[in-house]
């Protein structure tokens, strides 16, 4: 296709001169940069050297702190011992040991998985938590027989217990328990996020939070500026991976009639990303913080 170029006769020579000037200009700025470089390289080296010193110092401080902490832990364990050295009757000594063992067994529940022997077999207790917040516990009562079977349990019906048992219970009981742990912890975590959203951020929701029992499909509408004139966003979070506490699919849509302005469209897109990356209640916490310094120019 022929390109129209009204400037052609003169244009060619103008193009030539202008292009030449441009080339001279870039050459000049390049040579300027090159002469500046050795100096900036030296400055960079100096700065990196100082940084290395600082980091080495920090590393030594941290190592000393670790050693100090290890020593203090050993010391505090050693401090408990002298009490036993005091004269006590055999009975008291045994009772003390029993209390110790009971305490250790109790502490095991903080690993998430603990158990106790029963007349038939073992009762395993699965404790769930989300980011340090201890949540519900569930139990599975196993009968030691061939084949191993579950006598009864408190696992919710929507957790695929039968599937996991069919895969692992007979061949690898450890894997069975840890796999069940994964599902239950993930469910607990999702439930916790949804509960926190409902209780702490009700002000930002413009309608009820819709959720299924498994808490892997959430749907809600929200507004960043509750009193404002803008239309709310509608979010749908799907957690396809039942062992995860972050959603796999997120869609945020706009409920208004008009098309979104660019700034609102950017917000909508950024919200979609945020919901995929951070726990639900933490995303809303950041909304609430930003809301305190809301830029009114965003409100159309």
């Amino acid at each position, binding site marked *: 296709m022929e390109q129209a170029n009204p400037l052609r006769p003169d244009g060619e020579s103008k193009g030539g001169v202008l292009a030449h000037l441009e080339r001279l200009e870039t050459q000049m700025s390049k040579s300027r940069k090159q002469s500046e470089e050795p100096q900036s390289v030296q400055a960079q080296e100096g700065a990196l050297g100082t940084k290395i010193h600082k980091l080495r110092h920090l590393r030594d401080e941290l190592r000393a702190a670790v050693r100090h902490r*290890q020593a203090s832990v050993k010391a505090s364990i050693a401090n408990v011992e002298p009490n036993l050295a005091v004269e006590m009757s055999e009975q008291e000594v045994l009772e003390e040991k029993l209390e110790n063992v009971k305490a250790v067994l109790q502490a095991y529940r*903080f690993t998430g998985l603990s158990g106790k022997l029963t007349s038939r077999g073992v009762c395993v207790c699965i404790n*769930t938590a989300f980011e*340090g917040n*201890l949540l519900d516990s569930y139990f599975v009562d196993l009968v030691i027989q061939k084949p191993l079977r579950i006598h009864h349990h408190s696992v919710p019906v929507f957790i695929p217990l039968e599937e996991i048992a069919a895969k692992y219970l007979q061949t690898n009981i450890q894997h069975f328990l840890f796999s069940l742990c994964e599902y239950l*912890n993930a469910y607990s975590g999702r439930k916790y996020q949804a509960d926190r959203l409902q209780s702490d951020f009700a002000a930002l929701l413009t309608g009820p939070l819709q959720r299924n029992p498994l808490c892997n499909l959430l749907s809600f509408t929200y507004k960043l500026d509750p009193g404002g004139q803008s239309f709310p966003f509608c979010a749908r979070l799907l957690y396809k991976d039942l062992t995860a506490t*972050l959603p796999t699919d997120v869609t945020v849509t706009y409920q208004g009639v008009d098309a979104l302005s660019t700034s609102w469209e950017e917000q909508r897109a950024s919200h979609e990303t945020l919901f995929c990356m951070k726990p639900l209640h933490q995303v809303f916490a950041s909304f609430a913080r930003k809301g305190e310094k809301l830029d009114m120019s965003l409100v159309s």
Partner: protein
Amino acid sequence: MVTFQLEFQILEIQNKERLSSAVTDLNIIMEPTECSELSEFVSRAEERKDLFMFFRSLHFFVEWFEYRKRTFKHFKEKYPDAVHLSEGPSSPSIVIRSASQPGFELVIVWRIQIDEDGKVFPKLDLLTKVPQRALELDKNRAIETAPLSFRTLLGVLGIEAALESLIKSLRAEQNG
């Protein structure tokens, strides 16, 4: 085996309806030499005070760690002259050499990664070392595409069979 020291504090608040507990402090001390692959995960667990995730993911990590160790040991014993473990028995990588074709090396790096959610999964990569002359002769760009093809092979054969086939292919030249 992995050894560590754990210190944590739990705050229990009893209000009218329920008892709520939260971990308020978590300190995990693990020797850096023990498992350098774990250090990032350990800091993340400490930051989030996620005591339970620490134990759960640690269990799966150790399972994969032991499996990697066993697999590498198996191949080292089966093909002692071709297979080398660069950093000892717990090495994360394995080097395959052929005595008859010096200059050719296949390095398989098997990392065990723990993602944001505490999920543990293996990540294997193939690195190739070939003499310059061989690169020039390689018209089909087999060397260039090797890392990607390795990933595909893993998906088809699984870890053990993929490793076995690579070792056998490099040794094949030896037996003519």
